[in-house]
């Protein structure tokens, strides 16, 4: 909050406290309630270590499943804010697609309405403070434990305790407030009242960052007749629009997908709000009829408000849920990804740092982004593009043609443009992550950092190789030209084989065993290349000077391939577990690979 604004709020609140004890109680109730929400969020975050990723992947493959996930998680966590933050983070990390994200938002919109039912049904009728005390005691006891899960449980329990205590304080204070000031005197009838109270609802939710808190204030106030039912309806509409601010704030640090999701949340809730404002009288009539069926007394405005809250969000789902695909298309048009001159990281937003698994997955996806750029640079050095890697296209004649036509590629400029920004962002991102207890994630990050280093090394080796390769193009010695073409061809072939390896991982075609072939091919190519160079020198087809340059350059080729393979192994063999244990038993060790290379050589 801006300093001046914060000071004004503090002064206003202090003045309010001086004026009325009841106001002090209400403000304290809201604060305790919000603190409870924070504690609850903190608690649920403790349980997001891998399991959440698995649940998300299994439960979000269809729109209805995503909806169910959103509904259940918002109902359990009693915070649509936390659900939106999680969704934005996972979307930014590429663990979810936009359609699934929108499905979750719909579900959490409905799930969050259960809170209003709890407040209206239980919070105002039962002495909930009695339940708050043991929850707080057990919660704090668990917080002091060493185990991460017990700590998380502690935060959840104490969060619930604070929520109940907040409700109790507010209920009590509103009852005292009734004796001093009657807010109902400020009631505004008609359209003007609807619009003004909707705006108040939006502003209150934005300030408190919780639609639950606004709902609680509204339900408690309406139950003691401090505000009129009509104005309370408008406050609920406002709270539903204002609640989208949490996703908007979370999306500020997210990538374009996160921004699209926040846009969708705002769009859905805003349009539903406008729709309900237009037909508010019909909604009131429907609620009156529904109340009879549900056994809600005509005078029980609090329960009617909870029904309205659910009906409001349900109408939004009926109106917009069937059009998720169209929404995705619209959002993709509204939020267009900018393509800067210097390549920027795609997945490393601040929101990706919220959960250990999003951290690792974001870094992995960003490293794959770096890999694609590294491959681009290496291929362009030899006058090739990625589409040249197709099985029927890549051939020695193609390399010869590319060699003949291409002008020297500026690796330095390309490195600055395509690699440096992303690489530095990855390193900075990894170093910013400070979770100590998450050993699995820490070691994964360390492997990913190594993979990035291998990619940069591969580009550096390509640069060294480029010098003599470019010179060879003007050479009058055909044997030299042939050898350098062979180097370029073998590098391209290796990249092609890594691409095949990626497909094998996707199709689960024994990727671990294919690694042996790639390793053997690298070793075999090196042996063959050196043998060929020695033969050329011996037969005096090339000078010893050219021969020594070729030997150095074949070593660069060997390193490029090795570095690319090491990076690919870390980046693409992620999460392959199916038959990995048995595949490892059949995989060859270094001695076995050496034996095969020698047999091929002697053959």
């Amino acid at each position, binding site marked *: 909050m801006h300093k001046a604004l914060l000071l004004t709020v503090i002064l206003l609140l202090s003045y309010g406290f001086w004026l009325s004890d009841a106001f002090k109680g209400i403000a304290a109730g809201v604060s305790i309630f919000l603190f409870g929400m924070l504690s609850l969020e903190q608690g649920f975050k403790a349980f997001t270590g891998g399991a959440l990723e698995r649940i998300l992947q299994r439960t979000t493959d269809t729109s209805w499943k995503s909806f169910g996930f959103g509904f259940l998680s918002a109902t359990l966590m009693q915070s649509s804010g936390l659900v939106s933050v999680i969704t934005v983070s996972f979307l930014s990390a590429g663990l979810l697609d936009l359609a699934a994200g929108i499905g979750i938002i719909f579900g959490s919109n409905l799930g969050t309405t259960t809170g209003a039912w709890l407040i209206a049904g239980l919070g105002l009728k039962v002495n909930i403070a009695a339940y708050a005390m043991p929850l707080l005691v057990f919660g704090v006891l668990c917080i002091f434990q060493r185990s991460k899960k017990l700590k998380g449980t502690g935060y959840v329990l104490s969060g619930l305790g604070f929520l109940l205590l907040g409700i109790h304080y507010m209920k009590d204070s509103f009852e005292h407030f009734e004796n001093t000031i009657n807010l109902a005197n400020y009631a505004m009838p008609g359209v003007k009242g609807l619009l003004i109270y909707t705006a108040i609802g939006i502003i209150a939710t934005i300030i408190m960052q919780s639609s639950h808190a606004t709902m609680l204030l509204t339900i408690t106030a309406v139950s003691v007749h401090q505000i009129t039912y009509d104005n309370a309806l408008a406050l609920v509409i406002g709270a539903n629009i204002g609640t989208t601010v949490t996703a908007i704030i979370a999306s500020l640090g997210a990538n374009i997908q996160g921004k699209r999701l926040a846009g969708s949340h705002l769009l859905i809730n805003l349009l539903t709000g406008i729709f309900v404002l237009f037909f508010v009288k019909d909604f009131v009539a429907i609620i009156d009829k529904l109340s009879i069926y549900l056994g809600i007394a005509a005078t029980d405005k609090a329960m009617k408000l909870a029904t309205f809250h659910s009906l409001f969000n349900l109408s939004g789902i009926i109106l917009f849920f069937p059009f998720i695909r169209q929404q995705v298309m619209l959002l993709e048009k509204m939020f267009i990804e900018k393509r800067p001159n210097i390549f920027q990281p795609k997945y490393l937003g601040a929101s990706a740092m919220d959960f250990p698994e999003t951290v690792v997955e974001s870094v992995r996806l960003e490293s794959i982004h770096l890999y694609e750029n590294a491959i681009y640079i290496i291929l362009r050095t030899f006058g090739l593009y990625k589409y040249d890697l197709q099985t029927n296209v890549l051939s020695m004649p193609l390399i010869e043609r590319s060699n003949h036509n291409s002008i020297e590629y500026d690796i330095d400029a390309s490195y600055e443009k395509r690699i440096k920004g992303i690489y530095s962002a990855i390193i900075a991102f990894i170093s910013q992550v400070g979770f100590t207890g998450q050993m699995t994630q820490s070691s994964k990050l360390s492997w990913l950092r190594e993979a990035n280093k291998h990619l940069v090394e591969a580009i550096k080796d390509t640069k060294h190789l480029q010098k003599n390769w470019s010179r060879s193009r003007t050479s009058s010695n055909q044997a030299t030209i042939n050898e350098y073409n062979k180097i370029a061809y073998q590098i391209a*072939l290796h990249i092609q084989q890594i691409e095949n390896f990626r497909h094998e991982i996707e199709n689960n075609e024994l990727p671990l065993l294919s690694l042996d072939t790639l390793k053997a*091919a690298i070793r*075999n190519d090196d042996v063959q290349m050196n043998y060929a160079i020695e033969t050329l020198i011996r037969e005096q087809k090339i000078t010893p000077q050219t021969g020594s340059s070729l030997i150095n350059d074949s070593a660069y080729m060997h390193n490029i391939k090795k570095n690319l393979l090491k990076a690919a192994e870390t980046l693409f063999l992620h999460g392959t577990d199916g038959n990995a244990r048995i595949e490892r038993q059949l*995989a060859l060790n270094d001695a076995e690979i050496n034996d095969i290379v020698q047999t091929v050589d002697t053959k």
Partner: protein
Amino acid sequence: MKIEKLFHKLHAFFDTDRHRKKQHIEELKKILLKLKKKERKITHALQQTNDDSLREHYQTELKIIRVQRVKGIELLQQLKEHKKAE
């Protein structure tokens, strides 16, 4: 049929070690089958290509697959003998 399935599940539950070994053998058989198919595919590709570098690569790949298959078959025999001995 349902009772039989339930019995099978109960049996597997109470005899997890035996079940695990059986599963290991089944998975290994599947991998060996996949390797065999892969070997056929590479042999076919080798016959089709005239490119020297590609031929060399396919030959190496075939050698690797054969050694992997031999290792797999030996492992399968060991597992089967171990199972019989129990």
